[in-house]
């Protein structure tokens, strides 16, 4: 493949740019690999960049070839910082160290070979920004940050995205961890200022696709009064770097504060309302460990307040295991718990062979379990049944109260349903219109899928999770419109509702809705 830089040669470039040779010249070579399904595979087209060790402009760069190999030759500086990057990936280790970049001192040996990198596919968080009544908001800046990392901010960059006209945003290339998601919008009301959404905490696993996050931006043109609350944290060992984060009950807004060694804290910018609090301690070393979070008691704010006592409360959580009834599971399966609105609430990761999991820090309520999606695959499994103490719950729903529920079992199966059939032309009976596109939409509890019918009008949907569905066929309708609620409302009776059971194979013939 055409690689101009290797073609022309680094020495030539140096000459072209008139960089004086100090009589020193080093070669750095290595391989960049990706950890995929537990194996290390070579990763091509990764950009490897060399900079002077004390910072500064890029000194040289190249791309890995099909075998993941790269070579930077005739580098004229002895101390070099090397980084490797590729869109959608994050750096897991460099030169054998658990770090994003590596600093080499090639003055000792001019052959710095075997400087390998490991990249991993980043996780993705996507969702929508909406206002209080659920209408999408565009051009809102959404950012995800690993909060209060003791690592320098350069190492844990903030990933940002802007919501589009549907309110949708997408943050990609994230390393696993606990992110704080915020949406910021410049409010164009009387007296301009910024409005923020509540900071939302999301935990993503390796390479996970975390969808349907909803960020609510309070856009109402009203000014509100804020208060300060001070107090003391008791019953918890206060470590360096610990902080209290609070959220309003409706999760509409939040705040945070550092806790001093004696346990005292001051929270400011709190609006009137009920709050939940938790105490978080972040990892203090270079290794990325998930933070310790302790749930604290609730409190209310209706004015400035001092002497508030916060202490840990019995955690609410679930503990149990996955039972794989059928199918071919991955070594690691992530279970997502969705609340009543179909939004994420909590996640739990279970590993082979026992697939045990534990998840704390819930809100009491009703949840549905779903299998988390990795690399756009959901393991080919769905949650067929939820059992507590051996007994199945109705509707595969989990009710969480205060305290930890032991002995929760999620039964996973690959016994999906299938739906297939034919699209028929409308009643005049002349058959399908030649040249027209017939698209069939399947609307389920979590998402709307669509598929194109072939020239004979046949269509099929595989891997349907059991549940209640609606199905409808359209003539010449765009897929994006099928994914909107309006199209289904307009279809009215032409959209048919039907249940899908595990393992069922359902045949349905549909008459297409005309444009």
């Amino acid at each position: 493949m055409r690689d101009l830089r290797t073609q022309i040669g680094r020495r030539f470039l140096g000459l072209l740019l008139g960089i004086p040779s100090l009589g020193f010249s080093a070669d750095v070579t290595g391989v960049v690999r990706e950890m995929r399904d537990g194996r290390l595979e070579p990763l091509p087209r990764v950009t490897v960049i060399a900079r002077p060790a004390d910072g500064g402009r890029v000194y040289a760069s190249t791309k890995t070839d099909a075998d993941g190999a790269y070579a930077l030759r005739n580098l004229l500086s002895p101390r070099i910082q090397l980084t490797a990057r590729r869109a959608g990936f994050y750096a897991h280790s460099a030169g054998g160290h658990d770090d994003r970049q590596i600093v080499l001192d090639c003055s000792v040996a001019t052959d710095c070979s075997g400087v390998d990198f490991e990249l991993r596919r980043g996780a993705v968080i996507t969702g929508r920004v909406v206002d209080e009544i659920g209408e999408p908001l565009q051009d809102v800046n959404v950012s995800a940050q690993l909060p209060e990392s003791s690592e320098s901010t350069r190492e844990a960059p903030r990933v940002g995205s802007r919501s589009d006209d549907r309110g949708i945003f997408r943050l990609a290339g994230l390393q696993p961890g606990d992110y704080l998601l915020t949406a910021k919008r410049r409010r164009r009301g009387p007296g301009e200022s910024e409005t923020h959404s509540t900071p939302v905490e999301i935990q993503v696993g390796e390479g996970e696709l975390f969808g349907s996050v909803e960020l609510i931006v309070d856009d109402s043109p009203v000014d509100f009064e804020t208060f300060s609350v001070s107090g003391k944290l008791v019953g918890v060992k206060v470590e360096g770097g610990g902080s209290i984060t609070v959220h309003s009950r409706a999760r509409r807004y939040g705040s945070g504060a550092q806790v001093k060694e004696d346990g005292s804290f001051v929270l400011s910018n709190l609006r009137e309302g009920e709050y939940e609090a938790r105490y978080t301690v972040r990892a203090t070393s270079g290794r990325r460990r998930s933070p310790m979070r302790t749930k604290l008691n609730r409190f209310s704010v209706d004015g400035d307040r001092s002497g508030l006592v916060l202490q840990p409360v019995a955690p609410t959580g679930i503990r149990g295991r996955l039972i794989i009834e059928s199918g071919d599971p991955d070594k690691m399966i992530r279970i997502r718990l969705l609340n009543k609105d179909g939004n994420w609430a909590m996640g739990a990761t279970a590993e082979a062979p026992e697939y045990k999991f534990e998840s704390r820090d819930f809100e009491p309520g009703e949840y549905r379990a779903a299998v988390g999606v990795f690399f756009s695959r959901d393991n080919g499994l769905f949650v067929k049944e939820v059992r507590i103490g051996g007994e199945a719950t109705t509707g595969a729903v989990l009710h969480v109260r205060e305290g930890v529920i032991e002995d929760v079992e999620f039964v996973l199966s690959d016994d999906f349903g299938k739906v297939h059939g034919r699209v028929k032309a409308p009643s005049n009976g002349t058959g399908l219109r030649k040249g027209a596109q017939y698209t069939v939409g399947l609307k389920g509890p979590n998402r709307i899928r669509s598929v194109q019918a072939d020239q004979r009008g046949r269509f099929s949907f595989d891997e349907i999770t059991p549940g209640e569905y609606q199905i409808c066929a359209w003539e010449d309708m765009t897929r994006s419109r099928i994914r909107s609620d309006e199209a289904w409302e307009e279809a009215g009776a032409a959209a048919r509702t039907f249940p899908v059971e595990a393992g069922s194979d359902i045949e349905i013939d549909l008459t297409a809705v005309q444009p």
Partner: protein
Amino acid sequence: MTRLTLCIPLLCVGAVTLYAAPQGEPETVIEPEAELGGTIISAKTGEPLRGARVTLQPNWRGMRRENRKQTTTGLNGQFLLRKLAAGQYTLQAEKTGYETRRGTRIGQFKLAQDESKTKLVIPLRPAAVITGRILDSYGEPLAGARVGALRRNFQPGSRAWDVVQITTTDDLGEYRLYGLSMGKYIVGISPPQEPSQEGAFILEQLPAFYPGVLTPEEAALLKVSWGTELEAIDMKLAPAPATVISGLLADGDTGEALMGYLTVQTDGGAQLGNLQTTEDGRFALYGLPSTDLAIWATSRRSRLMLMARGKVRPSESGVEELQLIVRSGRPVSGKVVLEDPPTQPEQSEASQSQSEPRTSMLQLHPTTGRRFGRPHRARIPIEGGPFEIQDVQPAEYRIDVYAPPGAYLRAIGRSGKALEGFTLKVPHDSTITDLEVRFAFNGAAISGTVKEGAFGLEGFNADARIIIIPDEPEKSSARTSSQVAEDGSFEITALPPGGYTLFAVENRSTLDLWDPDVQRAFRASGEHVSLDAKGTATVDLTVIKEPEEPL
């Protein structure tokens, strides 16, 4: 100003500020009782829009932004603003996914005391969207590429293409250009610039316009109507050729090499990239396409801005050497001449000594390539007299200047000879000292009325404006548009003598009457007049209804 204390407590704050009666009126105690309300609907489907934000801005002096009233439509698309003071207002309506920023301004109108205008029906047009996926030359999704929607600008003296929306591809290589008005667009893609060391610029793949061409003129023209979602505007970028240009930036006055910044463009103005040279002025450009390219360089020597322009056509055989000589600009001087100015009214001695000479801004717009840095400009005395523009780089420029009230720009000339098309060529090797800017006061005038707008806005007339197209646009300095008063009347004065075609459009219209296709289609709605010096004409126009499809 007496503030009425007997106000309804909840509305006290709002009520007090609205008491600022229009200036000049005697102080009276006025209870604001006017109302404004209606329904916001989708222009495409007619259905009511919920969650649309309606803003009412009072227009009279003394009212500030904080006195805006805002509300949001409910489930049925309706809104109501009550307890409004009488006066002039501007109404804006917006909702995510509808209209462009300009289209949110609906119109201006007056509210009388106690008037109740509650049956407005305001249509918002759903914005168009263009989406697609960009692959790199290996066939993999290209993240971080800049994608823009460009629209043709037919007005003389402006750049041929305007970027109206710009976005970046995500990790899947996908992009979404939203908030577009109805019209014709081309889509341009610029790959993310490769990290490279100082002085080097490396293109791995070529920027392109959909469906894969290098210049805007060859690009596919995508027509979108309101609410169109154009999908699958995908592209695979071509790999960059193995061309190498090695160069040196040198100071034309001192002969020394010096550090500077370069910008590379295709001849048609498509940006390829930019870079900083090494400290001793060296640069190396890899992968530039084998076509005519323009290179602009800037540098500084103490406070002086130095610039250079070069042309190059890289070939794939061997390394090309390029030397760019940057120079400081030269002054351009001249004078302003007024032809037959009207006699000035007598001024008292006091006001004469205090008044400063009135000035207008003269600007030099380069006719080719990107406007690099600040446009050259200077203040010139509109009452006649000398002027000097500092530091003008050698290039060709179109001169733009606001005429004094009652006058028009009749000509720009050198040594008594008028410059065609108001275009000035500034040479490399000599200084211009004889530039003449002539204003004349014998302009013509057109007045008339505009008949009912056809926008379907019940309850009041949406704002309209007049588009004025001269017979020979390149050679005319006439203004190109004029506002229409609320009663539909308009008056355009100080027009250079000549022929003009006039059209009336709504302010929210996206019709580009400078587009020859559009002009042809609406020929019957335009009125042509030919005017001599000091001539007058009266014209009646009907507002053109915006078509359903772009032309």
